[in-house]
């Protein structure tokens, strides 16, 4: 069996993201490992958004809400372990990542269900605006809630733990994040090719067609939105642990925009679009950010180029048009 061009490119990207930090770690360059971890975590967040945006065509401008809720789940649970103050229901908090991830994913699932149930009654520009509004509500709530640092944010004094792995070592934490990313990309691939993905993508292409075969687009989209929120929330928890800090900026509309930019740069709806986009974005941020504070101006030019001349993003440019079964 021959591999398609896109599959080859995906393998190259996956291997590059794995090998570069491993080599860098051997050469004693932990900062490169941190950059790679940042790429992996942002790619994970964008892969989550890619379910809603790429497959479902749902342009959520509020995914920072889920990214931030995931981050705060990590920060809040860890802070209670550190302070010794019990949480409601006598729960002691946790500094174990598996526990934190479950909380983050559940919280984002519930938030996604509530936000999605209301937002998906609209479409187009209204959908964009209403998701933005929900995310901003949560942002301002976090800013004005003094219990967990308010505007100043919340530090995670010691990075949370994962059984059998020393998360304090940059390479170990990278490998953990990378593993989660690959598993989630695998889930995305399964979802996309399954019956659910068929209905979701068909609803993006032609809502009337989906309704006419007897499938209600609303239920399909709401499920996609919830799954999307959960995955982005998981990335938020990892992001908080990467920076050992969580603040309202994770919830702000800049973050929502950044996630959309990652997907457009890499290729909307493409399996490795978020990875390619996150690589471009972080490398740009690092390389240009060293030269000028206004690196986002140049990022804007690139984004303009992609939107005008390479609608399929980086993956589309390299692998050609998306092929469906």
């Amino acid at each position: 069996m021959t591999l398609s061009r896109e599959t080859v490119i995906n393998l190259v990207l996956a291997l590059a993201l794995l090998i570069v930090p491993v080599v860098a770690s051997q050469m004693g360059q932990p900062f490169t490992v941190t950059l790679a971890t940042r790429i992996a975590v942002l790619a994970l967040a964008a892969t989550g958004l890619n379910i809603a945006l790429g497959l479902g065509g749902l342009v959520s401008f509020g995914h920072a809400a889920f990214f931030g809720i995931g981050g705060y789940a990590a920060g809040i649970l860890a802070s209670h372990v550190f302070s010794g103050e019990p949480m409601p229901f006598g729960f002691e908090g946790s500094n174990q990542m598996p526990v934190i991830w479950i909380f983050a994913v559940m919280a984002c699932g519930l938030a996604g269900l509530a936000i999605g149930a209301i937002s998906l009654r609209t479409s187009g520009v209204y959908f964009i605006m209403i998701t933005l509004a929900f995310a901003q509500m949560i942002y301002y709530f976090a800013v004005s809630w003094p219990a967990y640092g308010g505007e100043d944010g919340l530090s995670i004094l010691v990075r949370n733990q994962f059984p059998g792995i020393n998360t304090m070592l940059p390479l170990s934490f990278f490998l953990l994040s990378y593993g989660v990313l690959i598993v989630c990309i695998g889930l995305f691939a399964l979802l996309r090719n399954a019956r659910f993905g068929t209905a979701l993508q068909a609803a993006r292409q032609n809502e009337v067609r989906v309704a006419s075969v007897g499938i209600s687009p609303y239920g399909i989209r709401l499920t996609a939105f919830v799954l999307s929120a959960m995955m982005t929330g998981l990335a938020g928890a990892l992001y908080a642990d990467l920076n050992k800090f969580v603040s309202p900026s994770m919830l702000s509309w800049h973050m929502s925009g950044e996630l959309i930019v990652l997907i457009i740069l890499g290729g909307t709806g493409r399996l490795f679009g978020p990875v390619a986009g996150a690589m471009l974005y972080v490398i740009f941020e690092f390389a240009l950010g060293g030269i000028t504070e206004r690196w986002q101006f140049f990022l804007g030019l690139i984004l303009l180029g992609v939107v005008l001349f390479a609608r399929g993003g980086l993956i589309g440019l390299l692998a050609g048009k998306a092929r469906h079964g």
Partner: protein
Amino acid sequence: MVDRPILELTDLVKTFGALRATDGVTLDLRAGEIHALIGPNGAGKSTLIHQICGTQQQDSGTIRFAGRDIGRMGVSERARLGLGRTFQVSSLAPEFSALRNVMLAVQAKGGSSFRFFRPVMRDRALIDQGMAMLERVGLAQRANIPAAELSHGERRQLEIAIALALGSKAFLLDEPMAGMGPEGSKRLTGFLDGLRHEAPILLVEHDMDAVFALADRISVLVYGRIIATGTVEDIRRDPAVRAAYLGDHA
């Protein structure tokens, strides 16, 4: 006892401001028949179709389908009851192949779309049923072509394959011949002729040769009202119809 018609519209009214687009339409579709709905442009045929499918709500009147009042149901609910339709302008998932378009209908009919893991392109049952439908409409060779790249006529065939895959109890075909060449029209006419035994067809069509060749009954819609219903011969002879619509054609 005679079977009750599968589809019954009673005193249907739909107004847009001062315009009565549907003005007290009563119409039925019986088992095994092709009932053609004809009328000049602007007569309200599309509005009527929209109300039957559920994309527009009637102001008053009832729509019964397969023994149930469907007048307040949504589009997808009506489709699940077995109302299969094709569109005046083809409506497909353009990026999907012809086969995956049909498979969407097969999966909708044969159970839940909330299955998250098994790849559809390795689901033999889905593929086989999809291919069988494509074969019936003569599109099997084009199964892997994206719908967007199919010819106009092929898209029409694909829509019919989708309606077939839904196991519809009635077909609502909105100008299936539109834009087809003479050869294609002839082939489709032959196909529809056999299809009526599977489920009755409400056929909206401008191609009078096809209508006269196929229809068991014809209803003529003018300014939102049915001015005549009858066999091909009745309609050909009806003076009001000749004046309003057929002109010198008959």
